[in-house]
């Protein structure tokens, strides 16, 4: 081994598969990533915007975007783990784009394939007068900065209405997490004498090897 690494890499590939918004049509999705100060995108697109999709009226009334996500992050610290922020917009009767849903999800922390169903919501008007005005002018309330859905502070003042959901697929590969001392799954953890914490039937003394997998085939006592 040459040098000890100082950063770990997180490679995420996946897609925004589709969504379920029964009462709307002609929807498109915007996505972007929100992450902490120690995180950097080394490759891939930080934000994107999908095609406008009409729902499948013959079968399950489901929207399909099939929109690719492909990005690699680099960080020294898991704090500020990246979140995928999704916002759905649709066209109303006058042809203006109206927010139909906002949502956020953390990128899965464990390597492997994951699917997530992200529930979506829209902000509600803060007063009855505003609500009437919004109805009258044909403008629904929306977030000025969509990234508020990825932040926990200041949420106590917002009232929302949840409607619909989006399905996403993620494939996660991480690199050098264990070398920096981080364990995101139980199978990377080792016991003091170097034996894997998974059940293994090695003889006493065989656990001196450092690699957890190398004593799996060595029980010939």
């Amino acid at each position: 081994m040459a040098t000890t690494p100082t950063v770990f890499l997180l490679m995420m590939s996946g897609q925004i598969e589709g969504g379920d918004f029964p009462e709307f049509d002609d929807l498109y999705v915007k996505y972007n990533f929100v992450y902490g100060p120690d995180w950097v995108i080394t490759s891939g697109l930080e934000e994107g915007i999908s095609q406008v999709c009409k729902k499948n009226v013959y079968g399950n009334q489901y929207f399909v975007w099939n929109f690719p996500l492909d990005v690699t992050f680099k960080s020294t610290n898991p704090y500020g783990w990246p979140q995928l922020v999704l916002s759905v917009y649709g066209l109303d009767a006058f042809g203006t784009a109206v927010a139909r849903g906002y949502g956020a999800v953390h990128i899965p922390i464990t390597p492997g394939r994951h699917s997530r169903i992200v529930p979506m919501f829209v902000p509600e008007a803060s007063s009855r007068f505003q609500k009437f005005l919004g109805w009258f002018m044909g403008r629904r309330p929306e977030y000025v900065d969509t990234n508020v859905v990825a932040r926990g502070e200041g949420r106590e003042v917002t009232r929302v209405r949840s409607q619909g959901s989006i399905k996403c697929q993620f494939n996660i590969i991480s690199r050098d997490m264990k070398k920096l001392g981080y364990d995101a799954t139980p199978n990377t953890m080792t016991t003091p004498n170097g034996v894997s914490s998974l059940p293994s039937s090695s003889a006493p003394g065989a656990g001196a090897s450092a690699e957890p997998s190398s004593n799996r085939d060595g029980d010939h006592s």
Partner: protein
Amino acid sequence: MAEVHVIGQILGASGFPNQNLYCKWKLHTGGAWKVIAGAREGQTQVDLPQNENFAVWSHPIDIHFATKGLQGWPKLKFEVYHQDEFGRNELYGYGFCHLPTSPGTHDIQCPTWRPSGTFREQVSQYFIGGAPQLRNADMVQSAERYTLQTVAMGKVHCQLGIILKNFDKYGVEC
């Protein structure tokens, strides 16, 4: 020092008698635990679901702990409130759950309960609203509750990822 990262979301709540719910949450730890970064407590948005009986909070949690000992492993405490059409808030449930000790992603459903109060209080709550609350909210995560009369309420759903650092270096098996 060994470190713990908690990364996830309070997804929402289900099984409550009314909608328009929000939740106050707090992470309680023992004395050996120190927060390095991230919020230890917070309050979610108020959600009125359109279609389903599931309040969506999607409230992100990202917190970094450092610890010198295992005593007092973090607990997540919830207080669920209902906001009625006049903007009044009434308590709908207390609950707590321990954070999982093994690394990885965990789906957690935390059941909740509320104090039922006397018959008179129940009648007045039915007609004019307002629910009894605990005078000392620390009772939620304490084991001394034998004087309380309670009612079962809905569930809070969480998805939490746990990342541990240097636990195996100190010989801790999680």
